[in-house]
């Protein structure tokens, strides 16, 4: 079973790495550059799980999560937040915004896979 993952990050390097890690793990990666782009993609793809960066142009991660959660179609999709900090404050913030979990950058592919497993099977 190939998990469909929508990965949102404005950094091309990070997208490349997510793509590599996800596809190496046998997942299907859909990549978006920012919140706006990701919402566009949600209209046409049905990811099992979303991974999103926080700091992005046009629409940042928090606003993106909020947009996803407030749409009935997508409100149940697990969302993992990519963050460079593992500070509790940020976790609380991510959770308050509606995130399911978080991945601390730089991520270890095995941990990424495990995190995806924890939220999306």
């Amino acid at each position, binding site marked *: 079973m190939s998990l469909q993952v929508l990965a949102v990050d404005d950094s091309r390097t990070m997208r490349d790495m997510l793509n590599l890690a996800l596809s190496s793990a046998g997942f299907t990666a859909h990549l978006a550059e920012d919140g706006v782009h990701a919402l566009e993609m949600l209209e046409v793809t049905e990811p099992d799980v979303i991974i999103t960066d926080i700091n992005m*142009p046009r629409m940042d991660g928090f606003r993106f999560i909020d947009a996803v959660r407030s749409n009935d179609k997508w409100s149940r999709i697990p969302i993992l937040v990519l963050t460079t900090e593992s500070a509790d404050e940020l976790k609380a913030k991510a959770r308050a915004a509606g995130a399911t979990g978080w991945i601390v950058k730089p991520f270890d592919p095995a941990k990424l896979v495990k995190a995806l497993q924890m939220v999306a099977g």
Partner: protein
Amino acid sequence: MSDPMAEIRASFFIECEELLESLQDGLQTMDDGDTDPETINIVFRAVHSIKGGAGAFGLDNLVHFAHRLESAMDEVRTGRFHPDGEAIRLFFTCADVLGDLVRAARDDDTVSSDVTDPVLEKLEKLVGVEEEAEEDLDFTPTTLSLDFGDDMALPTLPDLSALPTPEPDPADAPLPGGKGFTIFFKPDPALYLSGNEPLYLFRTLRDLGDLTVTCHTTALPTLDQIDAATGHLSWTLTVHTEESEQAVREVFEFVDGLCQLDITPFATVPSATLPFPLTATPFLPPLSPPEQPASTAMLPDPTTVPETLVAKDTAVRVKPVETPPSESSAPAKPSGTPTQPHATVRVDLERIDRLVNLVGELVINQAMLSQSVTEAGLPPNSPISTGLEEFLQLTRDIQESVMMIRAQPIKSLFQRMGRIVRESSASVGKEVRLHTDGENTEVDKTVIERLADPLTHMIRNAVDHGLESPDKRLAAGKPREGHVTLTAQHRSGRIVIEVSDDGAGINRERVRAKAIEKGLIPTDAQLTDGDIDNLLFLPGFSTAQEISNLSGRGVGMDVVKSSIQALGGRIAITSQEGKGTTFSISLPLTLAVLDGMIVRVANETLVVPLNAILETLTLTQDDVKALGPQAHVVQIRGGFVPLFDLGAELGYRPPQESYVGGIVLLIGQEDGNRAALAVDGIEDQRQVVIKGLEGSYGPVPGIAAATILGDGQIALILDPTDLVSQASGRTRSRPPQHALAG
């Protein structure tokens, strides 16, 4: 590709350059007084992204510096710190150092902490970010390595069939023994709202060891009262594992605080009452709206799958994954990304250069073919000739397209100059602002690279010697802050780059005196202002040691001039006393081809760049006038132009007896002066492929480069301006005082 990580790493450094560029842009905008929060965000994000990528590649020094800078930017972003001019100058310095670190990391080099530490110190002093030791510890870069192997063997997601079979008889439960944990887990309703799903947690837990799951259903309301979004269930889980409690807790990391969780090291046999069947449907199918029954959620929703996307998947790197028919056969998902903006391809420059060379060969081959066709005596309107004509056009089109691949905006170079201005102005205690214009002018990549040194030199000169000290400026009624302007534009098939300052202008008296003192000009030389200005380009006019107490310019301007000439360019200078000085560089669009006139001189074939030739004429008796004992001038429409004998100037032969009836090329130079070059004959006019001489031999005076003609012979490409500037001007045979050729 063999190593995807190496590829991503290379791409990371390219992205870094882009990020550094937007960082510079953002800081510039801030410096211009813009306080738009998005500008600060851009700056913050650039640093943040560099840090993020650097962390993934274990580039500790880069991470460390970027992290500190990011923290400082965060202070600005959150409005806790309001940067003034001084702060922004420091940010610029930080950006410069960050750039150094990026390039050092790229080239496996290091930047001394003597460079980074003082900057960080200043930054923290200024912005007042306390060292967040804890966060630094948190952000331990872990080098990303992908060890999945070729078979994509991910840490296998538990196949549902492999999960412990629901076992009604507690006697058959795994025997307690060894190590393990008993976990009581009761989700709060908020757990479900966060998108977490207990089933997946259990599956993850199962990877740690044998798992027994007991579901407590006592709190379960009657069916009609079930709210999908609210949890009513709790579980007791027993896992037999050698793993630490930490590993078990990690499984519940995302739901920490969203549930009641008690983990106790394995002690007793759990009183397994009702093992929960893990093969059941997830409690909350991820894609189903809460009010929908689970079964219907599994059906494809036609409204969300536009079929147009199926064909669009070419641009997406999706690894084909076997999709065994599973019980949760979700709707077929389009594998294409709907929008793939800025589709670009990264190509190794070497490949492009190879293409450029091949196209060059094509041009040469074509010339050979044309020559053969002409020699075969085919009429010009024969099918072969017309076919060849079309071939020629196609070749030119290909050539142009190939050249466009190599072109890139000059912006990166201009940004580097921003740093030069900041650093050199700081070192001489001047306040200087750099203005740039035409940053998006596209220039051949090699030209950009090779412009860096001469331009750096010129910018330093402008700051160092062009601009006055703040006091002098104020005394002259100018603002304290000096201005240096850097512009680029396309002008009639060439690129023109100008460096100007609003300084004092060239002190011609001193330049003249200096040139006389150095023996570069005779004491009684009659020189125009332009002549004097051009003395700065003379080798030996000045050296770095001597210039420091000279208010004029001239630090190695001869070196600048020769680097520009090596690029097939020209440099000119204009200066106005009290107003400033402008250096103007004009460069060919490409280094690879040139439209040339093929001429013959003393049995040698030479190419003269067509854009240097104003006209060609045959001299009559009336046109040529003797001037002095050794020289001639050509009278053209009332003006007099010095005559140069190309064969003699190149040392091929002594000057001719007479030039009457001879052919001359009228050459226009950058400074507006003209010159007449005597040649033996004009053979052709065609495009030639430029082959540099510098790499194989070295620069040759008066010669710009070489090319290969249709017959396979090498012909030299003339640099008329250089030739004239170094010419003897002898057009009359006189016993030479010393041999011309060395």
